[in-house]
């Protein structure tokens, strides 16, 4: 091992480029919460891999610091899980919007949960397509009026409900306006062994004039203060159906299951990225063709 001068991890370690988000955007809160969580967990930026999609949310890695794969719209999850397989020593965090994760990336979302790759997926859920300037998203509230939904949006996708039924082992919701809660929830997600889905209520100050900071603040309540048991699947399924007047935040569902990486025998010998290639290893395979 080369000599490594371990720097203490501080918020300064995670100071990235200057964000190009609108002033007052909920994304600032998520950025700060993520950095705070990483600092508290003493993760060094070089140990971190952020894989993001396309959207305002997907720009986050550029405004933090770490290894970054800013991938395609809707396609952040597949490269992220594969990178984790290639090198399980990385802390892998997926960052994207509601459109990115739940719509364009819908098929990945549906199937990645039960495979239980050991990564964390943070969804900046502003209930709107911000980067493309204000169309409805799969989580827009019913009746939400946008240029593509002049008659009001259809009923939304219950993404967290789908996640639980699709085999997620960690499902949480937090709020960009509550730094401590968001940082704590992200930490729990990263510490969880398995796929952690964290939906973050993220006010969009420019395009969503319904679900504002004030709107969310008046409605959110903390599940851990109400004695919710995240191990209780039926209770969790009840929680994900609450929306509107009262919006629950916190860890909604949690279960322990072997991760995808646990099931790959090759990884018992260490990360694929560190393997030495020996072409001679295939010699025994020729027998079958004789």
């Amino acid at each position, binding site marked *: 091992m080369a000599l490594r001068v371990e720097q203490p991890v501080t918020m300064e370690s995670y100071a990235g480029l200057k964000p190009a988000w609108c002033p007052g955007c909920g994304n600032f809160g998520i950025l700060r919460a993520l950095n705070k969580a990483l600092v508290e967990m003493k993760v060094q930026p070089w140990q971190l891999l952020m894989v993001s999609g396309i959207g305002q949310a997907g720009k986050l890695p550029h405004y933090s610091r770490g290894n970054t*794969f800013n991938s395609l719209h809707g396609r952040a999850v*597949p490269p*992220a*899980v*594969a990178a984790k*397989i290639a090198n399980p020593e990385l802390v892998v965090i997926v960052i994207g919007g509601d459109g990115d994760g739940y719509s364009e990336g819908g098929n990945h979302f549906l199937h990645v949960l039960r495979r239980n790759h050991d990564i964390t997926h943070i969804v900046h859920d502003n209930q709107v397509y911000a980067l493309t300037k204000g169309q409805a998203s799969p989580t827009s509230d019913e009746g939400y009026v946008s240029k593509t939904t002049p008659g009001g949006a259809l009923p939304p996708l219950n993404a967290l409900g789908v996640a639980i039924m699709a085999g997620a082992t960690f499902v949480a919701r937090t709020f960009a306006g509550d730094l401590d809660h968001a940082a704590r929830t992200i930490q729990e997600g990263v510490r969880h062994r398995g796929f952690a889905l964290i939906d973050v209520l993220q006010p969009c100050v420019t395009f969503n004039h319904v679900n504002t900071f004030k709107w969310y603040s008046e409605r959110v309540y903390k599940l851990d203060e109400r004695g919710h048991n995240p191990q209780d699947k039926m209770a969790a399924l009840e929680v994900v159906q609450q929306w509107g007047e009262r919006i629950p935040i916190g860890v909604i569902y949690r279960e322990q299951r072997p991760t995808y990486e646990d099931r790959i025998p090759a990884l018992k010998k260490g990360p694929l*990225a560190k393997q030495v290639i020996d072409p001679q290893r295939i010699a025994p395979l020729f027998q079958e063709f004789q």
Partner: protein
Amino acid sequence: MPVEANFMVGGEAGQGVQSVGAVLAKTLARGGYHVFADQDYESRIRGGHNFFRIRASNMPVAAIKEPLDILVALNQETIDLHRMEVAPGGVVVYDQEKGQPGEGNYLGVPFTRLAQEKAGNRIMANSVAFGAALGLTGYDLDAAANIVRGFFGGDVGEANVTATRAGYDYATENFKGERPLNLKPLGDGKRLLMNGHDAVALGAIAAGCNFMAGYPMTPATPILEYLSTHAKDMDMAVVQTEDEISAINMAIGASFAGARAMTATSGSGFCLMVEGVGLAGITETPVVIVNAQRPGPAVGLPTRTEQGDLLFVLHCHQGDFPRAVLAPASVEDAFWLTIKAFNLADKYQLPVIMLTDHYLATSYITVDGFDLSKVVIDRGETYSPERHGPPQEYKRHKVTGSGISPRAFPGLTEALVVTDSDEHDETGHLIEDARARTEQVEKRLRKLNGLGQETSPPEVYGPPNAETTLVGWGSTWGALRESIDILNRGNGKFNLLHLRELWPFPSEAVNSILQQAKRSYVVESNAAGQLARLIRAETGRLVDGKVLKYDGRPFTPSGIAEQVKEEVYHGAKS
């Protein structure tokens, strides 16, 4: 003295055509013969018409030969469809209870009854048929029995040996005419009998591929299956994904993080992957993509063959970025070109597309084996602090003269590896700045200079001063070479220019070879003459004609020779 033996086994799906074909091919290969076998089957599990052709010789063979010495008919349809392909001295061996003899040499054998009586299971009718075919050649039964035993294994193996013997004895006793073939083992055959996708999979493992993601689609599926089967003993991670979009994006993610990664698909699946091809292009992430061609568009003909994706894979995706396109000419070539694909991908940090097809994927051939000491692994220039400076200064997309920026892997050093599907600057962070954009486009395209030098010269077969040059690419190589031999048997003057590395296109070499010919014809399995267009685009040369086939069936040497004669001596039809 050349020995040539040509068999066909035909029947419906579920009758065991494939097993008879495989066992026969294996028996002859083990007996020291050179073997080539191809398959024709429908996209269904039961019923329909399937056949398996086997050619064996004491000389190397790389294509099917007509006519047949022995036609093994498991049903009447096989007799009806193929009796005209049998040589004058050839024999049709058929199931007495299921078929009617026609004119010529026929041997009726009660395949099903013997299977039931001798082996206790009518399902083994195909092994009786195998035995009967072998009986007609006088081949050593014990040598064949060993192959049958190994192929089926255990008690089932023994029962199939009994069935084989029953067919063999029946044919020996009841066939009164002159044997269509006299075959005996030539020695202990050490050659390997494999198909093109076996070779791709083995080549990938030899190259150190340790990550594969794929979604099943004929004819690419066997690569995914083979690698899944051997993932554990070969230290690989193999993922069956939710779709092809995921497959290519996973391969890219694994590669970014330091694995050697690939995916494999066909036609429609490749269409879904196209956005990923561009992602690999702009993020400069190595990835090997096998596109096993089948006739399109859309679902097309799932179990048939075509070379219809050439222009598609060359041009798919918006924008300009470098890529490499390789099309193996043979099974042996598939092994070595796969290794080259991984090396090019890593060295130039780009997507490499391997164009195989159904014909190459499902045709078996004997190969002499692969000298693993000749396998070269080139992972390209990777970042090290000693050579490239401190990690704080690392830039993933550093602008260099060669266009190649040393690659670091996340978490393996303290260098932060940043890349983006958005245009980015040297650091990998997204930009919209005009200068950085221009710099990155040019840097990426500069990689073509080095990449172009890596293209091996195309092969010329036949007399260099031939009047007529046939130009082919990819899997038609074996049939084309033999067609040249056929054409030159008269007073023809033909040679073959064959391409297996199609991009970067070897323009100069192709130009100078075509310059020497009076006439040139492309021979391709597609309707448009895609190689002809490529040659025109890259050399400005127009070929004189096109010999095309797009019925989903593979070219045969005699088929090409006839089509070429038609074209050359009677003028172009179109």
